[in-house]
């Protein structure tokens, strides 16, 4: 062991690492950002943002104005999913409400609704949805159908009892059970994946900026003229960013546990080990980008495009990949963040370990090793 640490290569690497650490510490601005970023993201995604839909603004036009129609509409206004904002008296008013976004859903009860229901015939009701936000619209339509069905069943039940016929039972009773995230809390779904997004920003963006910055300022040539070899230079440069990144992971895990109460059911060790592997891969990408582009502006733009965006959109962090068109799914297989998100979610929500996740972990390791090797090779070529 002793002889290893006295190895000149380790000494040189340590020297570069120390220099880099001093740089980072001397720039409290960037350091503050690096730590503030995960906090900001956690607050956003854990508290403010959700794809869950509640209180959909609703407008109604009751052309029938009978006991039945008022009862029907009351079912909507009383539901927690809808918030009755406007009672319209004309089509034009409905249109205006939707155009100005006063309402996202409009329910039109036709004039003969009361008679049809009294005669026990099917009564059509029109539901108009602002389709601009397809996600909310789809969910709102689902709610409307559920409310409507609930009302119809109530009427039927009331009827059967009134006639005195033997109580006609509902044929089917659906018992849904949700696994892994019983209350369907979207934060339990989003926060674990958030760790990967945070790491991408720190590792990809910060690294590419640093190295491209040195090229741009001309200090890279100075470094090259020292006896430091290529590998030592890279490793030394990356050490502080690796440290900052892992610190961010720790911070995120702690906040998820104590502030957001996201259950962590699996192995913490596996979590940190896979995070470290993933981090190395991301740092490698940062270096690769900056060896090609010596302009910080370009390097950062490319880093965002290649690391952050795919991680945000195609890793399954926010948007369900399995439901995307096949072509897009193929592309997502190339996104390393996808495997990391699978691993993290598996550890957090499903509580599984390597026996289920071994393939994803293996792929991550292979990716990181490959990228790092490539980065070092290209960097050395640039220096020569």
């Amino acid at each position, binding site marked *: 062991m002793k002889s290893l640490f006295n190895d000149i290569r380790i000494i040189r690497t340590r020297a570069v690492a120390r220099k880099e650490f001093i740089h980072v510490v001397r*720039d409290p601005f960037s350091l503050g950002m690096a730590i503030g970023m995960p906090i900001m993201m956690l607050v956003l995604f854990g508290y403010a943002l959700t794809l869950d839909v509640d209180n959909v603004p609703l407008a109604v036009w009751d052309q029938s104005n009978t006991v039945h129609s008022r009862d029907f509409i009351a079912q909507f206004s009383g539901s927690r999913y809808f918030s009755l904002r406007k009672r319209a008296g004309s089509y034009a008013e409905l249109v205006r409400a939707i155009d100005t976004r006063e309402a996202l859903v409009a329910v039109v009860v036709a004039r003969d609704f009361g008679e049809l229901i009294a005669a026990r015939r099917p*009564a059509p*009701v029109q539901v108009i949805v602002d389709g601009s936000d*397809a996600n909310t619209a*789809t969910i709102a339509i689902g709610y409307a159908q559920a409310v409507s069905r609930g009302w119809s069943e109530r009427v039927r039940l009331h009827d059967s009892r009134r006639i005195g*016929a033997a109580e006609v039972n509902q*044929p089917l009773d659906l018992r849904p059970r949700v696994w892994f995230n019983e209350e369907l809390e979207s934060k339990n779904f989003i926060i674990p994946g958030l760790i990967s997004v945070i790491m991408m920003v720190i590792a990809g963006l910060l690294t590419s900026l640093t190295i491209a910055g040195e090229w741009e300022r001309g200090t890279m040539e100075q470094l090259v003229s020292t006896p430091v070899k290529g590998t030592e230079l890279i490793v030394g440069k990356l050490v502080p960013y690796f440290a900052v990144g892992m610190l961010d992971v720790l911070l995120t895990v702690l906040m998820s546990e104590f502030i957001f109460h996201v259950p962590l059911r699996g192995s913490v060790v596996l979590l940190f080990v896979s995070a470290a592997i993933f981090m190395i891969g991301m740092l490698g990408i940062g270096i690769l980008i900056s060896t090609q582009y010596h302009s910080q502006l370009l390097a950062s733009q490319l880093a965002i495009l290649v690391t952050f965006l795919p991680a945000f959109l195609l890793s399954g962090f926010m948007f*369900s990949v399995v439901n*995307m068109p096949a072509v897009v799914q193929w592309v997502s297989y190339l996104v390393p963040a996808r495997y990391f998100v699978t691993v993290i979610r598996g550890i957090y929500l499903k509580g599984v370990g390597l026996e289920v996740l071994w393939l994803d972990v293996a792929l991550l390791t292979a990716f990181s090793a490959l990228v790092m090797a490539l980065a070092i090779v290209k960097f050395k070529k640039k220096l020569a």
Partner: protein
Amino acid sequence: MFERIRYMLRKEFIQVLRDPHMNLTLFLTPVMQLLIYGYAVSTDIRNVQMAVMDLDNSPASRELVSRFEGSGYFNLVEHVDSEDRCREMLDLGQAQMVLRMNSGFGATIAAGRTASLQALLDGTDSNAAGIILSYTSTIVGDFSADLLERRERRLLGTGGGIRGPAERVASVELRTRAWFNDNLESRNFFVPGTVVHLVTLSALVLTSMAIVREKEIGTMEQILVMPITPLEFILGKTLPFVIIGLADVALITSVGWFWFGVPLRGSVALLFVSALVYLLTPLGAGLVISVISRTQQQASMSVFFFYFPAFLLSGFVFPIDSMPLPVQYVTYVNPVRYALVIVRGIFLKGVGLETLWPQMLILAGMGVVSIAVASKRFRKTLT
């Protein structure tokens, strides 16, 4: 004065466009981002992976399963016959929903009693799970209603009761129509938003980085010794990015229209005017960032730190109505929010100033304030 601005503009344009890599960044990356957002970003839930554990295997259970298959939303991937396999499929993510019916299901229904069935859902993606649950409830609910009708017809047909043999069941038929986006393609929702997003990003990043770069490399001092007033300097630095921003709007709108078929129902002229008014705000913000940053690294991180939340809290992906009330109040000061309403209104709803004037007014106000604050701070550093 105009001549000096013209010279600055020329220098800036030459500098920006000379680097072929820069051209790529300016024009290719927005298109690439647009393609990614257009194809990848989708909250549409289709092709749900489903497994069935049918321990009953009666006509009723088989009919229910075939309804799921025929719905167009579900893909039946496997018929499971053990608990362990059920669990395994959910653990591995091979199925998002497992439908379970115990033996005796069909017999219970035929006997006129209530039969229960279980749907196990993978809750890790809570949004998808919620939607999948809603699909499942609908299919089961429709089947139940049909069974009920058959049952009632059988009962009433055998005499007794006030009603005649014809079906007389109260039911409400919902006829749904989605406006502006008939097939509920989430793409039509995201692409107009992408226009705003990319334009904002360009304005912020290019402006702040361009100015800080000069500071960092040291060419800022050289510019300062020129006979140029602070106003001319600011104009010279920001105008190119206004022009590039508008070019980006044109580019992305065209790609959105020709490639993705996103409808553009409103006035194109209004789109560009709104873009111009809107751009004032991020340009001012870019200037402020360039003042407070010493290095491009700081500028880049600042842009990210301030823009990312603005982007997320603008209603681009996450509905503002669903946010906690205090957060909703915060979004009122977010210019991106108003820009999105305008752009989506023009693209999808085809409305014009008569509906959008409040947003335009607010954006104009924000833009003016932004530029004013920025130039004041900027002048202080230059003199």
